[in-house]
């Protein structure tokens, strides 16, 4: 099951988190109270040039000392603080959510580490695979993930989600099967700018995991969704593929369709499938991915999970349920259900 929502305002006018909370809570039928989460873009304008690292600490002693050591090796912490939270009766606090605003040193770039973002990727992989009691769950600029085990309302109230104003929002109501009760297993999953909410189960996980691990990504979060974030980072950022092409690699057309295409398209899609066969995602899914440039929603190639799209002027909504969209925007227009594998893309106006 699981319920998902994606929202973008193409003019970058921010919306606070209260409506997203209401919409996500409406889909409680799709969840089980074991996990919910939100991500918002544009929430840290004061630190817009820093990477906002959100970390779950089990305690403030050893794990934090180790994370601090790694961060000091690679750059400067401009500011850090505990993420403000309010205790909720229905939510058991098992981690301390912390945020760093971090700038990597330029002179650390070199060799395998080709950019600032490679430094951040390296830090995230190192912390998550080697430090017990610390988990980086958000690592982009001017954005942040807020998630925990619990019902959507409780998680939203815990993080005071209505206090954040973002021009992109993703949210996820979880019915877990792989790793219940584990905050790291709640969605959205994030790496750098990429955030992912996902309803489904990736039957090709083993293949996708082996593929991204060949490029230095480490799958540590005990669930299949994180691999989607890494696939977007690899194909979208490192291989510089346009978003449409990334979606066509992850959910490509069938060979029957490709065979009938005009020669140039046939060659393109054949090349995509030959090159990125290991990135193809199989099994039922509906996914919305956000980045600093916009959002994209798509389903598996035979659409085994629901996805609905609506628009209202510069606002684009993607969700598991039409009713959730209508809670945010009763005036929504052009409600439709996209075809299997069709990318629904929302970009900021130029």
């Amino acid at each position, binding site marked *: 099951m699981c319920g998902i929502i994606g929202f973008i305002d193409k003019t970058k006018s921010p919306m606070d988190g209260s409506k997203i909370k209401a919409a996500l809570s409406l889909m409680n039928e799709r969840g089980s109270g074991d996990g919910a989460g939100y991500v918002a873009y544009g929430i840290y304008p004061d630190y817009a040039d820093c990477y906002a690292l959100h970390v779950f600490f089990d305690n403030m002693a050893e794990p934090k000392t180790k994370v601090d050591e790694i961060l000091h090796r690679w750059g400067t912490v401009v500011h850090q603080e505990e993420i403000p939270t309010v205790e909720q009766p229905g939510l058991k606090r098992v981690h301390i959510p912390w945020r760093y605003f971090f700038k990597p040193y330029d002179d650390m770039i070199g060799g395998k580490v080709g950019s600032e973002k490679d430094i951040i990727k390296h830090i995230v992989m190192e912390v998550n695979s080697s430090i017990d009691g610390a988990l980086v769950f958000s690592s982009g600029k001017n954005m942040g993930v807020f998630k925990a085990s619990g019902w959507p309302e409780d998680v939203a109230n815990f993080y005071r989600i209505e206090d954040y104003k973002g021009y992109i929002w993703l949210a996820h109501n979880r019915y877990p099967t792989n790793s219940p009760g584990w905050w790291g297993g709640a969605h959205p999953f994030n790496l750098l700018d990429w955030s992912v909410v996902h309803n489904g189960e990736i*039957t*090709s996980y083993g293949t996708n995991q082996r*593929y991204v691990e060949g490029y230095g990504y480490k799958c540590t979060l005990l669930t299949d969704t994180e691999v989607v974030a890494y696939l977007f980072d690899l194909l979208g950022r490192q*291989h510089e593929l346009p978003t449409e092409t990334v979606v066509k690699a992850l959910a490509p057309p069938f060979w029957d369709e490709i065979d009938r295409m005009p020669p140039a398209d046939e060659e*393109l899609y054949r090349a995509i499938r*030959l090159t990125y066969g290991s990135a193809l995602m*199989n*099994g*039922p899914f509906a996914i919305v991915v956000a980045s600093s440039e916009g959002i994209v929603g798509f389903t598996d190639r*035979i659409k085994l999970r629901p996805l609905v799209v609506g628009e209202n002027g510069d606002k684009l909504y993607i969700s598991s349920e039409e009713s959730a969209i209508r809670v945010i925007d009763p005036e929504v227009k052009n409600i439709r259900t996209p075809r299997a594998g069709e990318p629904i893309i929302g970009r900021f106006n130029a």
Partner: protein
Amino acid sequence: MSLGSIPPKYKVSIDRDQCMDCGRCIENCSYGTFRREGDKILIQSRKCTGCLRCVSMCPRDAISLTENPVDYRSHPLWSRDAREDIIKQARSGKIILAGMGNASNLPSIFDRLLLDACQVTNPSIDPLREPMELRTYIGKKPSRLEFKKTEAGDVELATKLAPNLKLETPIMIGHMSYGAVSLNAHLSMARAVSETGTFMGTGEGGLHRKLYPYQDNMIVQVASGRFGVNVDYLERGAAIEIKIGQGAKPGIGGHLPGEKVSAEVSRTRMIPLGSDAISPAPHHDIYSIEDLVQLVRSLKEATEWKKPVFVKIAAVHNVAAIAAGIARSSADAVVIDGSRGGTGAAPKVFRDHVGIPIEGAIASVDQKLREQGTRNEVSIIASGGIRNSADLAKSIALGADAVYIGTAALIAMGCRVCGNCYRGLCPWGIATQRQDLVDRLDPDQGARQVSNLIHAWTLELSELMGAAGINSIESMRGNRDRLRGYMLDEGILEVLDVKTAGA
């Protein structure tokens, strides 16, 4: 003191009440087990190879054949085989020859790997109602795509694709040469792969002119004897394979006995009539990996870089590192032949004791290529003891792109795995050049049977994938998450990178 004879391996008997005295057993047995004396059919069990031709052809089901009970004093170490091998060698002073694949009693890893299926949390896919994609491309793939802007401002693909073979199903037939097998066997297999949209290997025996109509589905082989190789041969093949080694006998060459070198075989191989065709152990122009690079590139140069070049090696201990070297050689695919691979003739000590099983080899080669970032440089073709669609599915889940079958295709044509291929008397018309025996295999019928087999496995693979919620073979490849090991030790589970059942 004489050694005396060893006991016959089989015991053949005729139910005389059932026998109608038609004599088909006498006609069919090319080994001379049956003969007529007066009005009676007599049996000489010692000559029987267990090929079951007589049993299959007897209209009255009157013939029974059993393995002759061991009449040695039982001993856990000194098995019947151990004792008989010594007796044979004491008599002959020679290497013991054996046919078909590894006959040692080691457990199969495939049998201890279990496939997965969907329940509740994700739906299985019904291949009868939903598309199921098994199409497989064999050859070099780019590791990433690059695009360029045209003058008109459109984005177009800048990456050029290397030539690949397009398979409609990830099952190919491996290299068994014309000479080792008959022309009718080759024709049967060639028609079957053309019909099913896949490929077969010629083996190191050249390409008979009767196979030219099927050349677009043939992979021509260049082995250490270079038999049958010229530029015309190379140009006819859809791909070229350099054979370095073979799973049944890693480290040694090949030997086609002169008895099998008939006029046609001699013409096709370009060797004298009746002469032994001996392929040396190494290629005499390959003494290191850089020499292999030269041969790969020479073959590509000769065919204008239009054909994929495969390199076939036996799965030996260091197979992963060797494959990694091959991945850097401009080759397009590496064929790994596991220790259970079949052959017409191999020294028994090699067949049963040299090399490693294919399962571990696929896993370590796939892993090494990924670590080195060269997995897209070459396809992995696995072979050596693939018996059914489950072995096929497991090979792919471990990381292979496709498999070669050999023995399975022979069985589809009638072979009963008696293991006497090197004697050239195959009563099924497969591993023989004697025309009256070859005529027993009707290429139309043989083709139907082999294509039925490929079709059946393809259907079963579709069902297995559908049950696992996968509708494209790419998502099965290297998906070790969908395998579990049962009664496999920790060491092998680690190499396979597979969890144990229940985990």
